[in-house]
């Protein structure tokens, strides 16, 4: 396992906070979508779309969202500049308004004792198995802020956020990984499969999904299972793969309890990671403490620590010392979290 991001991350993650997006983040979020140039594929590149996303977060925080739309947006903020440099989105229940599609990778064994033949075929089933699951998506860190632990901070923040509102989230949480692409940004899997069914290009198909216009998937996608063994080798090898740019992310998520459970993306066959929400590291192993102000001891353990609820949720990584039932954090960190002495914080020790 290669963990390119992990080493610098714990050390410099303190440079950032993660907080819940507010209505007045619309412009900053729109700028992030534009900068991502398609990487935030679920988000249309329009100011209106960004505003709509933030309104949905507001309704969710106010308890006024429907089951289908309830979801949150967490932003990565550079404490020095106050700039928004990354994000992750949480959806409480996917697929309740329009179907959520993916492929499930199954096995079919054909054997004949008479022919002494035994063959195990892998087969892709178009399915909506993940309907009702919670999802993390749109995990993104701006190019110029990478390598500093922002992605890890966002994933841990998401888990701590979920831990604080567990009743709103489903028993299972998923995250889709970008799949393998050729140097020219085409996906070998798309070339071998999707192209024949859609007659539009991959980006075009993804854009329609971003706009919520998913009827075409039902209309055009293969209704029958696809035998993997009949596809070109180049496509087979990318099924359940991960884009090299995010190769470091999967091990982080696996350490937190996500597993590849044989679901892959319908367009690029990228792996979907799944976890039992309650067993996620940040849910099962985080604890609530009362915050204390002070200077943590030299060599004190580092913590992922979150304060505030709902729209006040704010999270960072920082050293902290345990004293009695209190977690002692530096006054600077406390103020950054918008918390004061005696406030309740949720913290997860860095391993």
């Amino acid at each position: 396992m290669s963990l390119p991001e992990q080493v610098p991350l714990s050390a410099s993650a303190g440079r950032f906070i993660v907080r819940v997006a507010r209505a007045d983040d619309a412009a900053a979020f729109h700028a992030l979508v534009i900068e991502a140039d398609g990487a935030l594929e679920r988000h249309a590149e329009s100011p209106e779309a960004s505003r709509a996303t933030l309104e949905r977060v507001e309704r969710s925080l106010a308890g006024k969202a429907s089951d289908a739309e309830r979801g949150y947006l967490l932003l990565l903020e550079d404490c020095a500049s106050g700039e928004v440099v990354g994000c992750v989105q949480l959806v409480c229940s996917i697929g309740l308004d329009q179907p959520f599609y993916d492929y499930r990778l199954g096995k079919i064994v054909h054997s004949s004792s008479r022919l002494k033949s035994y063959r195990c075929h892998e087969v892709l089933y178009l399915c909506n198995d993940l309907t009702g699951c919670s999802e993390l998506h749109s995990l993104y860190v701006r190019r110029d802020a990478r390598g500093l632990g922002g992605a890890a901070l966002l994933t841990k923040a998401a888990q701590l956020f979920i831990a604080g509102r567990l009743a709103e989230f489903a028993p299972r949480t998923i995250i889709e990984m970008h799949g393998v692409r050729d140097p020219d940004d085409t996906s070998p899997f798309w070339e071998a499969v999707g192209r024949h069914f859609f007659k539009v290009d991959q980006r075009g198909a993804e854009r329609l999904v971003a706009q919520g216009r998913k009827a075409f998937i039902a209309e055009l996608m293969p209704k029958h299972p696809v035998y993997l063994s009949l596809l070109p080798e180049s496509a087979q090898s990318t099924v359940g793969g991960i884009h090299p740019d995010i190769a470091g992310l999967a091990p982080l998520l696996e350490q937190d309890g996500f597993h590849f459970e044989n679901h892959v993306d319908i367009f690029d066959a990228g792996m979907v990671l799944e976890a039992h929400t309650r067993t996620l590291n940040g849910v099962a192993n985080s604890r609530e403490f009362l915050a204390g102000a002070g200077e943590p001891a030299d060599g004190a353990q580092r913590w992922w620590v979150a304060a505030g609820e709902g729209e006040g949720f704010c999270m960072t990584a920082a050293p902290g010392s345990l004293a009695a039932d209190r977690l002692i954090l530096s006054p600077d960190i406390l103020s950054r979290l918008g918390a004061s002495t005696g406030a309740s914080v949720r913290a997860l020790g860095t391993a």
Partner: protein
Amino acid sequence: MLTIRPAQHSDLDALAETAARAGAPDVSLPNDPRLLGRLIAQSEDAFAADIDFPGEEQYLLVATDDGALVGAMLVVAAAGYPGADYSFRNETIIHASPELGVNHRMYALTLSHDLSGFTLLRPPLVAGDGRRVRVERALVQAALAFIATQPARFAEDLIAPLPGMVDDDGESPFWSAVGSRFFGVSYREAERLALGKDRSFMAELMPHHPIYVPLLPVGAQNVLGQTRAGYMPTYGLLIDEGFEAERYVDVFDGGPTFCVKRGLARSIRVAQKLPLAVDGSIGRSEPECLLANGEASRFRAVLAPALRRPDGRLATTADAASRLELIDDDEVCCVPA
């Protein structure tokens, strides 16, 4: 005079030689004297039996000319009997999205038992000389005349598979792309097994889910429903007879399986039963017709000059009548050319 009749044991040597000359295992006839001998015995039983509905019978017809065997053709009363006959149905699936302005047809090959119980015509096997098309056509017409005059022995639907394309090395691109992935044996071996009685391994090994054609390698797509160059005359003959080959292909090599409703096969549709008249004036100048006698174990057919006379009788030569074992006023089945 080209004469067609049920195969008998004394044909074995000539048949074996013809099969051997045609080369390796073939969908027409087994290239194996032992199997051929068994087939002849089965066929003799089938022709001799009283049959009320099609079952496991196999009817083997041979064509002779001047006493020499020049061709043979096998008719299987009920394909796959008593189990299933396997084929790929080339399913058309319409994929339309009004919103995307897309409306196209997808094709998918579905393992199907649709042809089970249909009467199966194997391609005629003809000793390779210049008269091949003539002998092939006569065999096909004779088989259809036999079916027309003995309807209870056969199914309402007729099928006729032709072997699929192979490349210069004798390999089937379709097999390489599909069958080889599902079987642990070679194409030859699979073909041999498939001709056998116990085909339960097909259920065990073949794909249950449809295979999307556009996802296959182009080489495999290109040979789908195509037959080998050597079978193009047979292909044309079946088309002339009204067979269609759009929907079913062979599970091993992707070759076409032709289908026709019995009543739509040309030779059956135009066949007429008329009283026979031996007529000395009939000769080379009259057009040749296929004539058949409507018998079972004494089934005979000839390719002979004949003419429908104004009195409604079918005039032909004494030689033809004698080969048909018919005399004046006996009913003869005539398939006009």
